[in-house]
């Protein structure tokens, strides 16, 4: 089952990379389109700056595909590193997990 999952992880990783590529290319191609930014599902009219989540939308107006797609893409792209970390975990070595499990959260933080 470890061997089987090792193959499946590679397949999932390829699918995720492919999804991210499509999103990034659309973001780049359509970066000039404007749309309002939202927090709390509301247009940010006169938002107190400190209440705006920095990982969401930092301006009241966004380049639609550019900013939104980049934002949407950043979320799943954080998990791609987790795929890389899943692959060695499929390997039958508890020592690897013991040595490396602490790195996983920090890798995710760097990229999220």
């Amino acid at each position, binding site marked *: 089952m470890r061997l089987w999952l090792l193959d499946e992880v590679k397949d999932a990783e390829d699918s995720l990379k492919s999804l991210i590529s499509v999103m990034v290319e659309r973001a780049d191609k359509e970066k000039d389109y404007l749309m309002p930014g939202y927090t709390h599902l509301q247009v940010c009219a006169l938002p107190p700056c400190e209440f705006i989540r920095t990982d969401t939308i930092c301006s009241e107006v966004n380049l*639609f595909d550019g*900013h939104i797609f980049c934002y949407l893409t950043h979320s799943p792209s954080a*998990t791609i590193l987790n795929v890389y970390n899943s692959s060695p975990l499929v390997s039958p070595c508890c020592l690897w997990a013991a040595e490396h499990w602490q790195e996983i959260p920090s890798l995710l933080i760097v990229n999220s």
Partner: protein
Amino acid sequence: MKELGFTSLAENSLWGVGDRDFVVEFMMWASLTMTHISRMAEDLIIYSTAEFGFITLSDAYSTGSSMMPQKKNPDSLELLRGKSGRIFGNVCLVTSTSDSGSDISLNKMAGFLMTLKGLPSTYNKDLQEDKEPLFDSVDNVSASLKIAEGVIATLEVCPSNDIIICDLLSAQVHGEKMRQALTMDVLATDLADYLVRKGVSSLFVSVVQLLTHIPSLQIPFRETHHISGRAVALAESRQCQLNDLTLEDYKQLSDKFTEDVQSVFDFEASVERRQSIGGPSRVMIDRQVSVLRKLVQ
């Protein structure tokens, strides 16, 4: 070992037969991935409603309503959102009972962690319960990623500033919707920034300056924020947009307003002023795009 694609050996045979961490690890990863997919699906569902009308899903990824022919339902996105719950259930759902037995899959695969909890060391027959939830997670997360790619690749964006090139019959309606969504009050922060640049002064600050002999400085954003708020309230009371207020109106709110206040009311310029990392200006989008491109290389 290396030929099989593993990075190391099982140094302990008891661990070798009893370990299912790799199963849980994958299902956890699948759950986290599906959380992101699900939230993204929710965003796109909202943007595709008639009320927002920012995007249109391709016909291949949506269906007509069984009852109301005018509707176009975002089935693909709803299924992605729905699949996420199923995949969470595979790894951590405690139990699921259903009298009708309508959701057989969830009933059969009630949370693999619940199987692992309390098992003695090494192999126990309980561990064969890993198969169904793992196979289900693998199948569904792989399919979901491929469907998400198809939805994103084929959806049409109805831009606000390219109405003319949109299809006159369908997309133009969306273009107008998007344009309407860009109301002038979203530029209220820009109005406050404008006053910061002008170095506005209030009675309170003037008194402080008089007492302390500090020369006139730029005034903090919190001050100009209040003035901008009063401009929004004034426009609201007159049921007009911020750019419909006259220069005299603005001068009554602060004497620092001059004719160039109209230059604030430009959406493109507002976006381009956001030049710090993470902002929506073109140069920062380019930066994000290049970071993400490197990631998937």
